[in-house]
């Protein structure tokens, strides 16, 4: 038994099932991070003006975070390039850009690791202040999303790419969907960066 519209688009909606599924998933992700941003606002408003002091005490590393922002934006670019290569039928270029995307995610995590360990060395833990608590909660959850996106991309760039020879459209669609997720994760960071480091 075949489920209709797994690859071909539905004539009325113009979309296949996976595309609708991933967008619905992203709406729920918006609500998830939205709730956390709301928490951030409530904690900041309820801090009786101590927020700036807590932020200063946390000594977040702005240059490293700026570098990380650049790395993630670059990875979104390579993600699109990977998908565009598949659209053109260039398997080799797809694999190149796919691994570059995964690699950028890896660099992001390594930098994040150095940031976290620097905090721990100065005894800055989630329990130290509500600023650090929400910082670790949100960036940690974001890092988990990065890991998830990397695993997803690594699968389709590595073992999953064999489908290229049998069902190219299917692979292209799946890469597009993982790209949507990857851009979303990127976008979350674009909000996290100013909220925690700059404001």
């Amino acid at each position, binding site marked *: 038994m075949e*489920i209709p519209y797994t690859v071909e688009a539905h004539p009325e*909606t113009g979309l296949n099932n996976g595309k*609708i*599924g991933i967008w619905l*998933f992203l709406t729920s992700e918006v*609500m998830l991070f939205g*709730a956390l941003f709301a928490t951030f606002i409530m904690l900041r408003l309820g801090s009786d003006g101590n927020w700036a002091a807590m932020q200063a005490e946390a000594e977040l590393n702005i240059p490293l975070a700026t570098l990380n922002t650049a790395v993630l934006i670059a990875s979104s670019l390579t993600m699109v390039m990977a998908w565009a290569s598949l659209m053109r039928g260039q398997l080799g270029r797809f694999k190149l850009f796919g691994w570059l995307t995964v690699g950028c995610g890896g660099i992001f995590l390594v930098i994040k690791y150095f940031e976290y360990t620097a905090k721990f060395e100065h005894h800055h833990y989630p329990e130290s*202040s509500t600023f650090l*608590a929400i910082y670790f909660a949100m960036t940690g959850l974001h890092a988990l999303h990065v890991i998830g996106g990397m695993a997803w991309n690594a699968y389709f760039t590595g073992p999953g790419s064999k489908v290229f020879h049998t069902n190219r459209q299917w692979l292209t669609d799946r890469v597009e969907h993982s790209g949507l997720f990857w851009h979303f994760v990127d976008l979350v960071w674009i909000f996290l960066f100013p909220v925690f480091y700059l404001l």
Partner: protein
Amino acid sequence: MAEPVHASPAHDEHHHEQSFWRKYIFSTDHKVIGVQYSVTGLAFLFFGFVLMMVMRWNLAYPGEPIPFIGSLLGDNRAPGGIMLPDFYNELGAMHGTIMVFLGVVPLAVGGFGNFVMPLQLGAPDMAFPRINMISYWCLFMGGVTMFASFFLPNGAAGNGWTSYSPLADIALNGQTAWLIGMIFLITSSLLGAINFITTAIQLRAPGMTWMRLPFFCWAQIVTAFLLLLAFPPLEAAGVLQLMDRVANTSFFIPEGLVVGGEVLERSGGGSPLLWQHLFWFLAHPEVYVLILPAMGIVAEVIANNSRKPLWGYRSMVYSLIFLGFMSFIVWAHHMFITGMGSVMSTFFQTTTMIISIPSVIILSALFISLWGGSIRYNTPMLFALGFLPMFGIGGLTGLPLGLSAADIPLHDTYYVIGHFHYVVAPGTLFALFAGVYYWFPKVTGRKMNEFLGKLHFWPSLVFMNGVFFPMMIQGLNGVSRRLADGGITYDFAGEVAGLNRMMSVSAWCLAVAQIPFIINFFMSIRNGEKAGRNPWNSTTVEWLAPSPAPHGNFDQPIEVVRGPYEYSVPGSDKDYVPQAEPAST
């Protein structure tokens, strides 16, 4: 190493015939998954009911040893068979959690939604069959976590099903297990919701336009949107509370909190109210998750058994969508007594009054649908008819709670418990029973026994009211809903405290009244009267499939040519015209 060779002769035959594990346990067929959900939901409903019956003993006979099972509970729960207040709290919290998240939602959404909706849409399966399977097993893991938490050294979570902070942040009981269990359940709902919506958008049969969808499908779609958008904030809140418990953060802990006479050593600066906002942002839409599928089932059963089209189908659908939208902006009416300020209260009581309008439209339309019908009083119809006044009582008693001034004296009393249970127990549960009796022939190919069904319905109706109506009377007298002894130590409870025994006896009789259902359920699987494809002479598409339906659902192409409730059409030779006539005729 020799095994692959050994297995190879039978390999070809197994290729077509799925193994037992693939077919019944890790199945991707929406019907099998629907049955898995339903059975899990029914089992947890029963378990949650047992928890409540134990609680009701202590409410009716505080300080007396629990009969039969008292000695089995152990000294840390009930020394000498006498229940400790802490154990009462555990039972209360887990009764709420299990009934809502592991009983009603799996049965109403996971069970009926999974089994019936693709059939009604004329779809071969769900859009993502494997995600569907994962969704069930996430629920299962959540259920196991919740169940196992009773055996932790300090018992299960006992901070109310709402898990209010800061109590839940610092409690020594199984709150951590509760949070982990909830994360499984939330994941399950999320995957299910994505699947439901995509299926409804993409896999409707040709000709099944949006306004030809059965009302049940509409209810499931709106419910899925609520699950999709309301659950993530609770997931966020759950993660934060988990951090408060295991990483000593202070998201929900204010500065200088005194516990046991000592100031808690935390950084502080958090907000207990924040938890309540995040929790109720989920939990109010969750109430509609409990009630909308029930309304959907009742609409199907009433249209079928009054042999009439639903009155006002379009206004019902629009009301449903409006209801779903509004349910996101009423949550703080659960928080009137937290002192959040009169401006906030005014806003939320206004939205609460507005949201009652679409509910009333749907209920009125269902009542008017009965007028002039040729009503068949079979078991599903009796439960559906029972739903209408019971849900009506539940809804109308909610109005005083939606007004902030009236809510203040009522909020912490049994009145709230009575109101909520009228909505979900004789309300939603009756609708779910109607659904079980109504769709049982599609699942098994056999009908359930009518006599036993009536023996199930009438006592259930009587005893449900016996349990929940006295709560309203107690509540209006000011009896607190948070006391393990049922308020017997308070003077003002004196004249109404005796009602506790009536409620408890009703609850145990209600349990006895479920025995005919259990017998009927298992007996009818093998010995029930054989049902053909369409035993109720219904119009909707699921009845065109064989009973039980095979993998892939339909043995003929489905093309929908008319609306869902073409009953008693003038000039027609029979009193129903199916939505999709077989393509061969």
